[in-house]
């Protein structure tokens, strides 16, 4: 069972650390929750997108006249309806993209860069008419050679996606264009000296393929242009302020003229941090003045929305016989898709972050190719880099004859040590997390024939950033917490809990809501495992301001000094013994708020600093059918340094969800392209994500021995670390079960059987 050793009750906390029912839960289990596609407005039109059948082609001519003439069609747009924009950088979760690339990805301009690239869109009174209108749009293409594999795209003679793209990060500045958008280097010490001193050197080349976030809700939005130039958008996204900013920039509008309402979001995992439909829907609505609903089909989600990179990870480790790793050299080549912006930067910094290696260099290449533009996917870049590094470390353990966890403990970063990427660690519990797995019953449990056990570790930075939150006290002494971060994994529960704890209220008297862009201050998007940390900090500060205000009002009522009032368990107590006064509860003060200054509320906006990095260690048991190459996951346990779990059940849920995605990534998920660069498996039948019967229960251990002092309740980001270890944990388990080291993902039955038969 889950071994949640949370220290909440030890610290006198009453709400934080408990497992209350989330305040927004009932709507989601009764079907009342409104997701993007559930928004229904009078006179609403249906929008559909015409997409490129070619992986790479110049657009010669688009003829939309027949489509415009079809009865029932109310608007048609192409990139001609988008203003020309510049190449300023846009903040978009991990995948930093430029404005012109985002715009060109919504509606292609001049060239289509992947099969599925949007070329035109229509809005009509029914989806049937909209579909017929798409068939009436004719597009003349000049088909160009295409390239998808990352190393093929790097080759000097590869077809060029952008003749004006020169590799950044290389001095002197190259003069010939290339598909390599950027080269990055993260280095420390003297690698040559390190390898010279090493007693054992181990090398490996590891390959992953593109995978999709796999959220079950396709992208959806409704846009409604106002006759006065003030527009409204309802959408499922990870950040409606980010959607507002991107729509305004792409369409050349003012931020104040676009109001974005957050619908419930059906999963994102980083993939809903950009825009695909919203600017197009708004452009269509501006042409006809009617609301336009656009919902991607599942096929469109796979064809045209951002997966993560496929990558090549070359790892070289130099170690002493006692297991100390003295030198490491890693090269990462990541696909960026149609436009620059793969997560190779973050992947480079995360690759060796778990280990104190004196001499290290990580070189990264961001490479465009004829695939959908990459978007962030949960700890972007780290799972790919970790698949290489954690597999190589496992092989090193075998060479050195060491227990794989002992080898990791020997090299593990500890508080005060400097990370390879430069910053030094403060409160971390990586060693304790390793020891927790080593002490877990699964690590010693006996294994049968064709069975094997693998371990792997993982790291993610976690970020802070800008957040706003408000706390309103009702006249009857209840409270409402308002934030602007879409809640995907239950964050409204943790916001309400942190406010309740600070106000001294039981959780039942606190509600949490997500406000639209006009009703709360700006917040950066939900991603980077930042919401409980950064927005939580804003919630607690707002609640603290309310408590200060309540103490001031009590002092006013008792006519004593403000510092003679204490706030405990939701009530004000007077410390001046001479005043025999009964305590004043929140309900008392709220019901008479008019007499003490008016309504009680506070809003705080901040840029949260000091986000604490997270570490995960996983152990996975598998059984392999030697005659068919099928792998079955028998048992799985994930331990993670979480600072302090605010709502332990939802923290466990983050670990279990990340593990399931990681297992899918390791075993069966992949894009299959044909010779013409067209995706062959754009659907849940042949893009094989794990189903319920594929997985065992996933046990979790929450390590809370290093709370983050920069957060009022010690919280750290937890959402992204869990997806980093599983790829290597599964691969290492398969190696122990079969003796075959699989260095390419996915480890699908055909590939594993071929390897078992020696053709690997």
């Amino acid at each position, binding site marked *: 069972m889950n071994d949640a050793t949370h220290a909440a009750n030890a610290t006198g906390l009453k709400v934080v650390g408990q*497992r209350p*029912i*989330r305040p927004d*839960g*009932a709507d*989601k*289990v*009764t*079907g*009342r*929750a*409104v*997701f993007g*596609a*559930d928004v*229904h407005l009078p006179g609403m039109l249906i929008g559909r997108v015409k997409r490129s059948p070619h992986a790479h082609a110049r657009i010669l001519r688009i003829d939309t006249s027949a489509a415009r003439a079809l009865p029932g069609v109310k608007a048609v747009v192409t990139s001609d309806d988008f203003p020309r924009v510049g190449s300023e950088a846009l903040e978009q979760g991990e995948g930093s993209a430029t404005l012109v690339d985002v715009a060109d990805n919504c509606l292609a301009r001049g060239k289509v860069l992947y099969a599925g690239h949007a070329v035109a869109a229509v809005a009509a009174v029914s989806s*049937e008419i909209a579909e017929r209108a798409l068939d009436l749009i004719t597009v003349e293409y000049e088909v160009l050679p295409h390239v998808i594999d990352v190393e093929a795209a790097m080759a000097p003679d590869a077809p060029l996606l952008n003749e004006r793209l020169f590799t950044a990060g290389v001095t002197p500045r190259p003069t010939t264009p290339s598909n390599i958008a950027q080269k990055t280097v993260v280095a420390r010490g003297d690698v040559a000296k390190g390898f010279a001193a090493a007693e054992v050197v181990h090398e490996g080349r590891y390959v992953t393929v593109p995978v999709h*976030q*796999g*959220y*079950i*809700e*396709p992208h959806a939005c409704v846009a409604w242009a106002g006759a006065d130039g003030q527009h409204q958008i309802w959408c499922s996204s990870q950040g409606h302020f980010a959607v507002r900013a991107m729509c305004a920039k792409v369409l050349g509008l003012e931020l104040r003229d676009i109001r974005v309402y957050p619908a*419930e*979001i*059906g*999963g*994102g*995992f980083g993939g809903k941090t950009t825009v695909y439909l919203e600017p197009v829907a708004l452009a269509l609505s501006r042409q006809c003045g009617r609301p336009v609903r656009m*919902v991607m*089909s*599942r096929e469109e989600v796979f064809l045209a929305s951002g997966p993560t990179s496929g990558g090549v990870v070359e790892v070289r480790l130099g170690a002493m016989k006692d297991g100390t790793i003295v030198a490491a050299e890693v090269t990462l080549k990541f696909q960026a898709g149609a436009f620059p912006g793969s997560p190779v930067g973050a992947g480079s910094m995360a690759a060796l972050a778990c280990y104190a290696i004196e001499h290290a260099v990580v070189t990264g290449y961001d490479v465009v190719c004829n695939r959908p533009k990459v978007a962030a996917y949960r700890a972007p870049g780290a799972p790919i880099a970790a698949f290489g590094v954690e597999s190589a470390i496992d092989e090193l353990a075998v060479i050195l004859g060491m227990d794989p966890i002992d080898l990791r403990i020997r090299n593990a970063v500890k508080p005060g040590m400097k990370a390879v990427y430069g910053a030094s660690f403060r409160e971390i519990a990586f060693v304790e997390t390793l020891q927790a797995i080593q002490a877990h019953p699964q690590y010693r449990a006996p294994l049968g024939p064709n069975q094997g056990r693998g371990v792997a570790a993982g790291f993610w930075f976690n970020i802070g950033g800008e957040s706003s939150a408000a706390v309103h006290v009702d006249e009857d002494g209840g409270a409402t917490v308002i934030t602007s971060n879409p809640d*995907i*994994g*239950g964050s409204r529960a943790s916001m309400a809990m942190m406010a309740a704890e600070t106000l001294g209220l039981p959780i039942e008297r606190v509600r949490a809501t997500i406000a639209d862009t006009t009703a709360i201050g700006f917040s950066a998007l939900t991603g980077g495992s930042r919401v409980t940390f950064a927005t939580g900090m804003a919630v607690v500060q707002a609640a603290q301001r309310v408590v200060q205000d309540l103490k001031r009002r009590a002092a006013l009522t008792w006519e004593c000094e403000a510092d003679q009032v204490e706030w405990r368990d939701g009530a004000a107590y007077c410390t001046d013994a001479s005043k025999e006064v009964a305590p004043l509860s929140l309900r008392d003060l709220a019901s008479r708020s008019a007499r003490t200054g008016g309504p009680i509320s506070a809003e705080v906006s901040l840029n949260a600093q000091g986000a604490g990095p997270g570490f995960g260690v996983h152990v996975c048991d598998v059984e392999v059918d030697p005659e068919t190459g099928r792998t079955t996951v028998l048992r799985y346990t994930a331990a993670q340094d979480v600072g302090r779990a605010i*709502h332990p*059940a*939802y923290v*466990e*849920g983050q670990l*279990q*969800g*990340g*593990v*399931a*995605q990681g297992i899918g990534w390791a075993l069966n998920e992949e894009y299959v392209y044909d010779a013409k660069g067209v995706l062959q498996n754009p*659907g*849940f*039948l042949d893009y094989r*994500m*794990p*189903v*319920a*019967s*594929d*997985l065992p*229960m*996933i046990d979790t251990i929450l390590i809370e021995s290093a709370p983050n002092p920069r957060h009022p309740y010690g919280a750290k980001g937890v959402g992204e670390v869990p997806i980093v270890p599983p790829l290597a944990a599964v691969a290492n388990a398969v190696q122990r079960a079969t003796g075959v080291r699989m260095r390419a993902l996915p480890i699908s039955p055909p590939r594993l059987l071929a390897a078992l038969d020696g053709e690997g």
Partner: protein
Amino acid sequence: MSRVRIEAVVNGEPVEFLGGTRQSLLDALRDELQLTGTKEGCGTGDCGACSVIVDGRLVCSCLMLAPEADGRTVETIEGLAKNGVMHPLQQQFLEQAALQCGFCTPGFLVAAKALLDRNPDPTESEVRYWLAGNLCRCTGYDKIVRAVMDAAAQMRAAGGAR
């Protein structure tokens, strides 16, 4: 596509609506009857988010034509709670955090109800294989399976299915 008159009993209520002969039952429930609790995740019967129960049989509403519902009973997520009182499955999903984003939850609840109607005491494996047609990307299924088994136990203790 022509439209035909359809009479069905949805969540115990007789309804009458016009449905297209190429319109799926899923689209009819959502666009004609405004019952948006049933979701489209794929439109090809591979994700289970559109699960409904027709004449007692668990099906994907995206794989049925609207006219096929004529004369039949349809149960959707909106009908699981009776008179505003949540079904034990709904309660257990909330208490055990068996949902995160909640998009797949309606499909899981309807499918789990169909299971417990048939098998009041399922093993973990029986729950997992019955629910294999419902994809979830957030939870890793652990808490969903536990919530279904605990709801089954709660219902057995309370004397059988409601």
